[in-house]
């Protein structure tokens, strides 16, 4: 369980990214974090594992406050939190297997990781996870030889190899096409359900969030302006989150996309017939 209490982040430049953000994520719950660019979504999830240092407030993961931990304790806390990134953030020149095993870095000594001699249980887990995400045959390939969707699967396997108690997911589908995006979202949701794993997912694609999330938090200018189920996410609420102009533009964009997809499908059907 994750408790975020009165979290505030002010950057050195004076930009206030988050002000007094509070919420709780229960075990097994997948929360979508929506909001316009610059609303503080990215700062919020990076505050949780302290890639970004919070200015004030508390972040409690299963009782431990992560704010104010020293370097060693912070590393031990980070290994309990898996993170999945927008541009996959795989180490491109390492093999897929090394990328998955790098999720264990917080658990092994420097020499074990340097000589790539991980414990048998870690290697077995890595193979099992690669099999789960459908990439077991690619274990020895270099990460930069994979496609976008495949790389994001490796990113998921790396996060899961940490045996995390929480998943932080930063725009997992922003670099993927619509079909692959849906596959990746489905995979994420399934995995969270299998493991009863709580997750915070930054997502700017509202229809995708509504389709997959159990709960949605809306951020605007660093403040929580909505917290509820996808059904409660009405036009009015979305207008509050995104502002009238932007939301209308986004909705029109989505409609045009849908129209284009339907046209394409019809075209395909016609050509097939």
């Amino acid at each position, binding site marked *: 369980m994750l408790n975020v209490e009165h979290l505030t982040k002010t950057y050195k430049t004076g930009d206030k990214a988050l002000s007094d953000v509070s919420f709780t994520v229960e075990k097994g719950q997948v929360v979508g974090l929506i909001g316009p660019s610059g609303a503080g979504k990215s700062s919020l999830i990076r505050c949780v594992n302290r890639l970004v240092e919070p200015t004030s407030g508390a972040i409690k993961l299963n009782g431990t406050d992560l704010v104010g931990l020293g370097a060693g304790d912070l590393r031990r806390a980070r290994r309990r939190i898996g993170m999945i990134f927008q541009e996959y953030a795989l180490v491109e020149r390492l093999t897929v297997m090394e990328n998955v095993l*790098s999720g264990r*870095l*917080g658990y092994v000594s420097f020499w074990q990781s*340097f000589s790539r001699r991980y414990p048998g249980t870690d290697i077995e887990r890595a193979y099992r996870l690669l099999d789960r995400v459908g990439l077991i045959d690619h274990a020895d390939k270099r990460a930069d030889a994979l496609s976008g969707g495949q790389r994001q699967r490796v*990113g998921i396997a790396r996060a899961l190899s940490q045996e995390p108690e929480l998943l932080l997911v930063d725009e997992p589908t922003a670099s993927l096409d619509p079909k692959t995006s849906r596959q990746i979202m489905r995979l994420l949701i399934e995995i969270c359900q299998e493991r009863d794993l709580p997750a915070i997912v930054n997502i700017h694609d509202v229809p995708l969030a509504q389709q997959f999330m159990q709960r949605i938090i809306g951020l605007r200018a660093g403040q929580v302006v909505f917290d509820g189920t996808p059904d409660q996410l009405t036009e009015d609420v979305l207008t509050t989150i995104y502002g009238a102009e932007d939301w209308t533009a986004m909705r029109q964009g989505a409609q045009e996309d849908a129209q284009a997809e339907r046209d394409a499908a019809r075209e395909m059907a016609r050509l097939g017939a």
Partner: protein
Amino acid sequence: MSSYPTTWKRPPQIFTHRGWRIGLQIGVLVWFVLAIGSIDANWERIIAGAERGMRFVQGFLQPNFTSRWSDIYGGLIESLTMTFTSTIVGIAISIPIGIGAARNLAPAPVYYVCRGIIAVSRALQEVIVAIFFVAMFGFGPFAGFLTLSFATIGFIAKLLAEDIEDIDESQAEAIRATGASWWQLINYAVQPQVMPRLIGLSLYRFDINFRESAVIGIVGAGGIGATLNTAIDRYEYDSAGAILLIIIGIVLVAEYGSSYLRKFLQ
């Protein structure tokens, strides 16, 4: 009919005023003429020297590998040994200094110390360092080895640090998020990103060190340079030509070899 212009000239970008441009052009011309005029050329000496220069060129065209072969061979082996050892030692020392001089990895005090070492190593030209080491350790290849190692540090550490500062931060962020320690971060996120360039730079430095070994030999730091210097002092331009040809040959081999290796490593 359209009345749009059919010619176009790029407008001046820096000095937009015509007067400034003309003034600047005249200024440059005057400065150039004055500078040429200030060069003190002794034409008689140049004509006399041309004859010696021709002898040198003729020697170069008829290289003599045989009469001083044992000296050439000894100098060559000395130079290659010096190059090889100094490159390896220099790189081994450069890596920690390069990591320390990368702003995104090192704390401020370490950063300034490492940048300072790099600045000192780069500020002192090889020949000056060689004269200093020859004075300290006497004539011979040991002074040359120290000189080249010292010069390698400034070169590799600076370029390595710059490459580390240019890495893709998101990969480092991902490794940091797993709970990795600083050493693990270096090994997993930084090393894979900078390794190909480090190998490329090392090969390039090997090639530079070989060429430099010929230069510093002239001030007494051993190697093929010492042999070359002796040959020139004795007016044996045919042997000097042979030495220069061998140096060119080895640099060519190093050049092709390293570009092939770099392609292979990408």
